[in-house]
């Protein structure tokens, strides 16, 4: 809008300082993840902002290799929690996408579903904490506590509203002429959906699925309530990296945090174009 020189200088100064502020916490964690124990346990004057002698010890420690500097060893490595996060998020995404996509198609083409859209918004507004008591009781009854599939089922339901709204906007945007042509040729409605609509929607399905995956991967509270030991997810496991005996294992926690942070950041940047649509329930397209 404005192209005067002082404005340009102000713009860069303001943007760069905000970028720096938004990067510091992340960079600090990255730096901690590569510091040897002597550096990550340093405080005050000895504090270094960047690792002097970068090392992968923290990552090795997470996967069960005890280092000479750190006398403690983990009773459980980070392998199982990473697997648990992956399995529950992936299968949660599959459940959410299957139920959400078919419901979105039903609503977009046949107007069926009644109060479903409103119910899905309501589901999003409720704090998960306020419906978890009965879910915990049900899950205990069904033997689903501390299993990755029990967690995946809750994830699938909790993130279904996003899958539904995203796919609904994509279906609404899709021209119907192609479907109509196939119907005239004598294809059944279901066949058209399966053989024509879904293959055309492949990019939309992929970005919706990635969006839902990020949400599932980011959960903490639900895993905290529904897993106890064998299938705890990464954020829940992270708390076990500090004890009264060892204190805070900053380096190991930072390394694990980095492992947890990478997938959503990479995928999020990959689907940047659709983030607005996903976050606003399809009310706004970029």
């Amino acid at each position, binding site marked *: 809008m404005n192209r005067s020189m002082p404005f340009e200088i102000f713009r860069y100064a303001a943007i760069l300082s905000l970028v720096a502020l938004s990067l510091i916490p992340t960079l600090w964690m990255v730096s901690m993840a590569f510091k040897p124990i002597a550096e990550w346990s340093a405080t005050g004057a000895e504090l270094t902002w960047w690792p002097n002698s970068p090392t992968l010890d923290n990552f090795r420690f997470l996967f069960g290799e005890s280092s000479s500097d750190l006398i403690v060893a983990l009773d459980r490595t980070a392998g199982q929690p990473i697997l648990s996060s992956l399995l529950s998020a992936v299968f949660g995404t599959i459940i959410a996408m299957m139920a959400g996509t078919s419901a979105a198609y039903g609503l977009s083409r046949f107007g069926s579903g009644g109060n479903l859209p409103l119910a899905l918004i309501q589901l999003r507004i409720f704090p998960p904490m306020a*419906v978890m008591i009965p879910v915990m009781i049900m899950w205990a009854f069904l033997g689903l506590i501390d299993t990755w599939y029990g967690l995946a089922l809750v994830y699938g339901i909790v993130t279904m509203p996003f899958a539904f709204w995203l796919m609904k906007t994509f279906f609404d945007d899709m021209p119907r002429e192609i479907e109509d042509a196939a119907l005239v040729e004598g294809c059944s409605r279901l066949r058209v959906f399966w053989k024509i609509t879904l293959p055309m929607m492949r990019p939309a399905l992929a970005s919706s699925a990635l969006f839902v995956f990020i949400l599932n991967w980011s959960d903490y509270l639900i895993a905290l309530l529904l897993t106890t030991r064998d299938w705890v997810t990464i954020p829940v496991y992270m708390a076990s990296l500090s004890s009264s005996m060892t204190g805070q294992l900053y380096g190991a*926690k930072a390394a694990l945090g980095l492992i947890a942070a990478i997938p959503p950041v990479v995928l999020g940047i990959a689907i940047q174009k659709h983030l607005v649509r996903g976050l606003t329930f399809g009310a706004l397209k970029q």
Partner: protein
Amino acid sequence: MTADILEAKAEPVEHEDTRDSRRLGFSLTLPAQLLILFIAVFPILMQIYISLTDWSPLDGISWWQAHQLWNGFANYTDLVADDRFWSALWRTVLVMAICVPAEFLLGLGLAILFVDNFPGRGFLYSVLLVPMMVVPAVAGYMFFMLFQSGGPVNDILSFFYGAPVTIAWLSDPDLAFFAVIASDIWQWTPLMFLILLAGMVGVPEDQLRAATLLGASWTTRFRTIVLPRMKTIIIIALAIRVIENFKVFDNFYIMTGGGPGVATETISIYIYKVTQQELIWGYVAAVALVILISLSVVSAFAIKRMSQSREAG
């Protein structure tokens, strides 16, 4: 005459088609409906039942036998007198009242800076989005590290102060509250920025150019052309953050566990702690129901208002 024949012929076919597609539409939405029934409708009925009892998982009886511990509406009357509940609720509202406007103003400012093209825009845009994609629990842990008394925040302060600063951020009630607020603003300003920028880019160029030619100043153009067009988007962005902020748990709980004392205890942390530590689930069910019902009423009202204004506009 011919038209009549065509219509008469077409009608049964049309009818069959709609019945078929209605059946297909119904079966397509069925899985979603069942899942909602499974996690919302049935659990809420169960919650109503439990909330009328003193049941706890340690009582050794199953939840369906909870009627043996029937206490009528005692949980609800206890709730009215529960200071910790009201203070957690008030604190949650306070967090919203600070975080949402701060995130909105910062996001709006950033969006204004980013609205037209400049070298490096795409890259800086992606970098600014990183915080909101970091797992909230991990963000909580990042800020936990930053605010340690021997940590980097104090290190920066020492640099400006000239002498070592060792503020125990997370063990002082006021400072801990400030720290958790900072983590929330850090993480969610990018979301406001993203949504507001998307709305701002949609404003037609030619209108702005015409206004510039007519001699309208930048502020006038912004106030009279850009802002009115962004009204719906601003409402959506604020609504999303209000909803999410009310649920806030992850980063607060990891940074302070709701403490020191109850200084950073929001409503979600309060419910979690009563569930896990005090194990009076009958009471928790009552608390949760009161919150669910109030939220349903507020949200139904808000959605109705929004769809009305959309029809009017």
